């Protein structure tokens, strides 16, 4: 079968113009900045998500340090009340929407197509569009610092305090517009990745043979698909209130501010699982590799993830136990919240059971994974204590809650993600991060993390409220706030060390990971991995797979390396090199780069600024959006002559050792 003609049969390269709009020549660069801004490659988009998230992490981290400096001692004078309110609002918003969510998106974008044996996502240009929307939204949000100050209503932005009377600057407008745009990114991404998982799995990969990370990505994307529209609806109400004098949250006109609370938390609680489930997926990949055992109870891991996804919709009002929703609602949401601890507990115990009886190797990724299991457990337990709603009326809006969700989102999600960085770094960049430095990094982070957030449990139970720019001497808050501030700077040190590790490891990129006492000539499979992404060379070739593998079992790649001998003993049956792909296939038809996702996404911030400052900007932005859409539609998803190399119409690559035929070589993208 020829690999060049797509299902759409667009004809040969010569027959179709490469300037469908007559504006831009279709980009074709494989290197340089232009190749990055026009890329539709899920791997490059994943890398850009990660890089942008790390950039925003620096901003959010500086905000965190400012908060901790202000609170290091009573009567802090570093920040004014006004500035402090902006800083904590932007810290929360940045860390949630611009750090943890996009890091999850980075992993999902890069890994999920590889794990299911696909060449790209279902809609590669939409994928690029998602990223540019996310970046644009993040820039709009943070541009508020340069244009009169950040949002000052808290990340939860309760009405009516978010109204124009109580917050007359444009900070909240930037917050609103920025998050509306990142919402588009999330929603488009959700559709894209769900379609990808459901339609583009390698032959033989049934749903119950998908890696746990891919499963958790799928659940996460469904949560995004249903949660983001609720936030968007609420934000539209807020936008109309603030910019066009609507009265959705005007109490004197009969509004009930609890409407916002309900809408926000119906989004806000699934959001928690949107942030944590990808990290659960990450360590579910890491722990089996470093325990040399399959994941314990794969079906339980999958179904508990799905259960968390479903139950996550029935617990939102536990954020509102003090808001006066009445004892019946409070009781119902208390009980539903407690029971969401059950599937989470199953996951914790299954990870421990995966380690049980294994041969544990404590490389950096494993350290961070165990870090997640233990730190998340603390967050889970404090979570149960405020599912007990009468107790929550004492705990809510105190530092006890701040401690809780940092144990969940930092001790949980971020620890998992950092483990994932150490784990997949060789796959993505072709060199490994220094493992020893990774372990030192881990211990500094673990100590810093616990020093920062551990004392907050005590502060909260001693009655220190959240979101206060100052506190007084004589309340018993001094010591633990100081400890917490010291811990925060230790966290900063650990991240500086992490960045240094990236820099120095990159410099020594030739130093390869030692596995089993010998240096591998290839970094394709540095950890003795289990899932399909380890089957291809590192860094992943642009076309991912020379030949799409046919899947027969969970952990397909591992089972190609190891099997039982005639005595039923587990032995190596093939060298890694034999069952790995070379990455040298030619003539694989890939989606072509495009300017249009960037053009379309570029129009949106203009509309946002226009709504805030001058509606004429909206017209301009709208024209860009329309032009972008038009160009997009007129452009074929991939140029027929476009292959990842300069040898069109080459014969397909010979079949690989595992015996697939070249006939499985196919279009990367079904439709676009």
């Amino acid at each position, binding site marked *: 079968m020829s690999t060049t003609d797509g299902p759409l049969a667009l004809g040969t390269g010569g027959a179709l113009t490469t300037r469908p709009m007559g504006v831009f020549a279709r980009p074709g660069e494989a290197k340089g900045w232009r190749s990055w801004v026009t890329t539709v490659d899920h791997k490059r988009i994943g890398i850009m998500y990660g890089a942008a998230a790390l950039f925003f992490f620096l901003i959010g981290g500086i905000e965190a340090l400012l908060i901790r400096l202000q609170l290091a001692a009573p009567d802090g004078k570093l920040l004014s009340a*006004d500035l402090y309110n902006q800083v904590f609002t932007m810290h929360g918003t940045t860390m949630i929407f611009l750090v943890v969510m996009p890091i999850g998106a980075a992993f999902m974008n890069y890994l999920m197509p590889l794990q299911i044996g696909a060449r790209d996502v279902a809609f590669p240009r939409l994928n690029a569009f998602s990223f540019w929307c996310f970046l644009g939204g993040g820039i709009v949000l943070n541009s508020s610092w340069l244009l009169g100050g950040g949002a000052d209503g808290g990340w939860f932005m*309760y009405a009516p305090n978010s109204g124009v009377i109580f917050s007359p600057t444009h900070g909240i407008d930037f917050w609103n517009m920025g998050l509306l745009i990142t919402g588009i990114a999330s929603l488009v991404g959700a559709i894209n990745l769900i379609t990808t998982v459901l339609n583009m799995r390698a032959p033989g990969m049934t749903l119950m043979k998908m890696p746990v990370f891919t499963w958790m990505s799928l659940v996460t994307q469904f949560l995004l698909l249903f949660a983001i529209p609720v936030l968007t609806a609420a934000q539209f109400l807020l936008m109309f209130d603030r910019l066009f004098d609507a009265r959705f949250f005007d109490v004197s006109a009969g509004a009930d501010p609890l409407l916002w609370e309900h809408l926000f938390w119906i989004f806000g609680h699934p959001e928690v699982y949107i942030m944590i489930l990808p990290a659960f997926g990450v360590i579910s990949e890491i722990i089996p590799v470093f325990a040399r055992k399959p994941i314990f*109870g794969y079906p339980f891991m999958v179904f508990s993830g799905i259960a968390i996804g479903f139950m996550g919709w029935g617990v939102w009002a536990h954020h509102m136990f003090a808001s006066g929703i009445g*004892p019946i609602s409070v009781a119902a949401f208390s009980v539903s919240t407690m029971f969401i601890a059950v599937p989470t507990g199953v996951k914790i115990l299954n990870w421990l059971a995966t380690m049980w009886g294994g*041969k544990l190797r404590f490389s950096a990724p494993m350290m961070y994974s165990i870090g997640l299991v233990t730190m998340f457990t603390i967050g889970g337990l404090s979570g149960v204590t405020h599912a007990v709603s009468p107790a929550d009326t004492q705990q809510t809006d105190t530092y006890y809650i701040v401690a809780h969700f940092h144990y969940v989102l930092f001790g949980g999600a971020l620890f998992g993600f950092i483990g994932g960085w150490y784990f997949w770094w060789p796959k993505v960049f072709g060199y490994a991060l220094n493992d020893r430095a990774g372990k030192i990094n881990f211990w500094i982070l673990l100590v810093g993390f616990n020093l920062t957030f551990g004392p907050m449990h005590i502060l909260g139970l001693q*009655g220190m409220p959240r979101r*206060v720019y100052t506190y007084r001497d004589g309340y*018993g808050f001094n010591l633990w706030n100081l400890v917490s501030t010291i811990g925060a700077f230790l966290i900063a040190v650990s991240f500086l060390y992490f960045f240094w590790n990236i820099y120095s490891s990159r410099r020594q990129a030739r130093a390869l990971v030692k596995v089993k006492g010998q240096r591998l000539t290839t970094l394709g499979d540095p950890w003795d991995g289990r899932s399909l992404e380890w089957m291809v060379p590192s860094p992943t070739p642009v076309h991912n797979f020379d030949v799409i593998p046919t899947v027969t079992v969970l952990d397909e790649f591992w089972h190609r390396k190891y099997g039982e001998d005639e005595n039923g003993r587990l032995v190596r049956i093939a060298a890694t090199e034999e069952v790995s792909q070379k990455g040298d296939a030619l003539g694989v038809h890939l989606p072509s780069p495009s300017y249009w996702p960037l053009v379309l996404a570029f129009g949106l911030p203009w509309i946002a600024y226009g709504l805030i400052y001058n509606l004429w900007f909206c017209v301009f932005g709208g024209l860009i959006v329309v032009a972008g859409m038009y160009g997009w539609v007129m452009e074929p998803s991939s140029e027929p002559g476009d292959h990842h190399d300069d040898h069109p119409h080459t014969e397909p690559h010979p079949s690989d050792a595992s015996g697939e035929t070249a006939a499985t070589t196919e279009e990367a993208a079904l439709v676009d």
Partner: protein
Amino acid sequence: MTRRPRLLKLTALLFGLAVVATSCADDAPQTTLKPKGPKADTINDLINPIFGIAAVVFVLIMGGALYVAYRFRAKDDTDFDDFPEQVHGNFTLEIGWTILPALILLIVGVFTVVTVFDLAKKPPPEALQVEIIGQQWWWEYRYDIDGDGTYEEIITANDLVIPEDREISLHIKSRDVIHSWWAPALNGKRDAVPGRTHPLTIQADRPGEYIGQCTEFCGLSHAEMRIKVVALTKDEFDGWAQTQQVPFENPTDERAQAGWSAFAGQCTSCHRITGMTDPASGGDDLASADAPFEYPEALDQVSGAAPNLTKFMSRSTFAGAKFDLRKDTPECRALGENWAYTEEGLERCLNRTDLEAWLRNPPAEKAMAAGEAAAPDSRGMPNLNLSEDQIDDLVAFLITLK
């Protein structure tokens, strides 16, 4: 193995220190761990065993994780190469650790639900009815002393004065944004949501002061929207309530009279003193000025209303309870039990510095969005550009409000 006991001792020591650090009530007047009333007791009785269960689970999981990590570590790379038994799962075990936590949580859930409804019980009719109104950034308290359903007998701010050992039925409202009223020693918090009235019941076992503060983020001075509950014995409370209802008397002192005029000219667009008349009318014969003040029914989301200053001097704090009205020094306390209410106590212990600074330039003393001058949308007290003479007059007038 000599290291391990030492490690244990160290851990025990650290744990002990943490317990000591958290349980010193004197150091932490706002703590949730030392209930001083039956409602807060109920909450602690529920949560303490659950903290216990959580601690056990914590130790089991942490210990389990460390044990597994230690016991099953690969000794070296060659050891890692040996295959451990490839266990794919254990259905019985997994069902077990699905059901067991569910059962524990079911028990916790039953007790929780019972407690929720217990705490939501309507207080008995003999409970003292108090309306609480939150506003950026202070709390107003209105008492229904005679039980007629209106909250007008006493209107005060900052200090919620209650009798000991009697249920207090609170009706919590807001005049602008969402606040949350919280005195942790007496009960959990309850949000003050504009447009809604939320009930909460508190009761103090003993006379004393119970500290709290607003716990729903409410803008600029959220951190300085403080709460003080003062519980008195029954007799003391009755005396206080009576004093509060003694009609306003025009000051006699010359300086205070000047202050009275200044107050009527500068302050009464926001502040009220129940029963006060306009001094320009020559005293108490002006009917129109005598009309009792009423706050707007509608919640129009702007402030415009400021603390009612009737019996101002009977309070212990001002400016949203940010500042103490009196300097609580040993010398002052040496003046006798009721030093705060004697002429001498006032003279020697009034916190004149902060009070004058507040009158001089309030936004400099507390973060507020007051604007240039008093306006319908100003939140907090604006700088009225008072002269030093006017400030002295006003203070002289204010100390007559007792």
